[in-house]
Structures are given as C-alpha cells and as structure tokens.
C-alpha cells in the first residue's frame, strides 16, 4: 500500500506530460527555436505555482502524509557541475527530445526504441559514476 500512492501519482504525471505534449520531440525542437510559447507556458506556470506552493508549505510548516518533514534538501552551491553537467544534459535533451521521465512515458506510448535511449542513459550514468572523482564539481 505504501507504494500505491506513488504508482497513482506517477500514472497521473505520465498522463499530464503526455497530454500536454511536453514529451514530444517536436515540442522540444520548437522550444529551442523559440517558435512557440507552449513549452515556456507549461514550465513557467508549473514553476510559478511550484514556488507559491513551496512557500505555503514552508510557512505553514506542513508535514508529509506520515507526519514527517518534507524533503527540501538544499543543493551545495558550485558552478562547474551545474553548468557543464547542465550543458551536457541539454545536448542530450535536444537530440533525443526526452529527459529521464519522458523516456519512460514514451515507452508506454509504444515508442519501443526508447528502451535503447534508456539503456544508453543508464550507461551514461555509469560512465559518470566511474569518472566522478576526476570531474570538477
């Protein structure tokens, strides 16, 4: 039962991202050409509402369903890892039109070749893990 709620929210999230087309390669291509407001509208409105929600949660000291603290682990500030890692990620995003979440959703949508993208992503993660000590963070 502990996992059922995550399964439900994951399924709902998959439907939301599918129906709002943000996992379509075409939409990503269009976004990087600044030819449509759609992606900016989706991400922008999600972030604005996200900021408001997180502020309310923090001010009201709202708890999780189990009464625990919500997980807002702050990230340590540095530049290399976020900028260079981010650039590499962005390159992959523009090529595949999919970030990790959409890879799973597109699989469900019947784009079976996404399994190759997902396995490549896992190998990329493995490569990062092995090189981690040599990379600037």
């Amino acid at each position, binding site marked *: 039962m502990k996992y059922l709620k995550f399964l439900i929210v994951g399924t*709902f999230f998959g439907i939301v991202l599918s129906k709002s087309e943000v996992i379509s*390669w075409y939409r990503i291509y269009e976004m990087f050409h600044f030819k449509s407001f759609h992606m900016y509208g989706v991400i922008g409105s999600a972030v604005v509402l996200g900021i408001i929600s997180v502020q309310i949660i923090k001010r009201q000291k709202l708890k999780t369903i189990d009464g625990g603290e919500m997980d807002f682990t702050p990230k340590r500030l540095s530049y290399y890892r976020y900028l260079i890692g981010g650039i590499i990620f962005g390159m992959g995003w523009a090529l595949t039109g999919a970030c990790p979440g959409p890879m799973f959703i597109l699989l469900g949508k019947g784009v079976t070749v996404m399994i190759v993208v997902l396995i490549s992503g896992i190998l990329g993660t493995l*490569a990062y893990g092995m090189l981690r000590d040599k990379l600037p963070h």
Partner: protein
Amino acid sequence: MEWITQPWPWYVGGPLIALCMVLILYFGGTLGLSDNLRTLCSMCGGDQCAEFFDFDWRQRKWNLVIALGLVIGGFISHKYLTPDQAVQISPDVVEELVAYGIEDPGSTYVPMEYFSWKSLQTLPGLIMLVLGGFLVGFGSKWAGGCTSGHAISGLSNLQLPSLIAVIGFFIGGLLITYLVLPHLLPIP
C-alpha cells in the same frame, strides 16, 4: 469530457505538473526522475564499478514505482485519451522540417523517421538515440538533476544551483539545435 482527448493547453499542463510535485512531496518523496537512472545502475551491480552506486537503492524504490506509473500513464494516454496523435507545432517549424525531408511533421507524436528501430541502422539515428541518451544520463548525474529535479523541483524551491543548471540545459540544447541538428536531420 471532450477536452480530455484534445491536447491540453499550457495553462492546464503546467499547474497539474506543480500539483504532481506537491503530491510527491506530501507522500514523502521529491520529484526528480534522473535519480532512477542511478538506482537502475546500482540494481544492475553498478556498485562493483564505482562508489557512486554503492547506496541502499531499496530506499529509492518509491521513485522507481513513479517511473513504472509513467509507463502506465503513457500507455493509458496513448490508448484511451489521445485519438489523434498529431502535435500542433508552429507552421514555421513544419516548413523547416519538411525541407529536411520529414514527411508530414507533427502528424505523429514523435518523428518516426528517427524514433524507430530502423533509424538505429543510420549514423544520425545512432547519434540521436544512443549518444543522446548517453549524454542525458551523464549530464543529469553530473548536474545532480534533470528537467524535473532542477527545472521544476529546484526552481520551485528557489535554489540557485538549479537556475545555473537550467541555464546550462538551454546552452547545451541551443548548441545542438543550431550547430548539430541541421546536419543530422536531413533525410538522404
């Protein structure tokens, strides 16, 4: 109820994404899907290769369950909620893609010319799918998060590192879009 089967506009999609983020926080998790790539690595014995994968992945099972939900959600959306798979992209983009030789751009959810098993037999297809996937995995873990973890969760929490990462996402995306894709996309 007809609106459900139509494409959802940004002002429906965006707020529902925020709702999902809050629900996951409420359930004791945090929205960030690239975490699953690391977990999958550890499950497959990655802890033998690097310390990075030596953690108790069983504690991250909830996130894998979300990923499983994503597959189911994609299936439900595809099978029952989207009778027309077309994506209404801008006419400028359609024109550009037609010039590259893509047939009827936007008539399917993703361009089948590239997102098919056959495409893996071509160099552009290999670069887009295999190298692209590799960069997503490598970059998201170096940056400590992906679109969901940084652009949604991180920015919502006003974290400067996430803003730097999102700026990076755009620099990388623009580099590929303007310098590389014009050479990869044309269909011979």
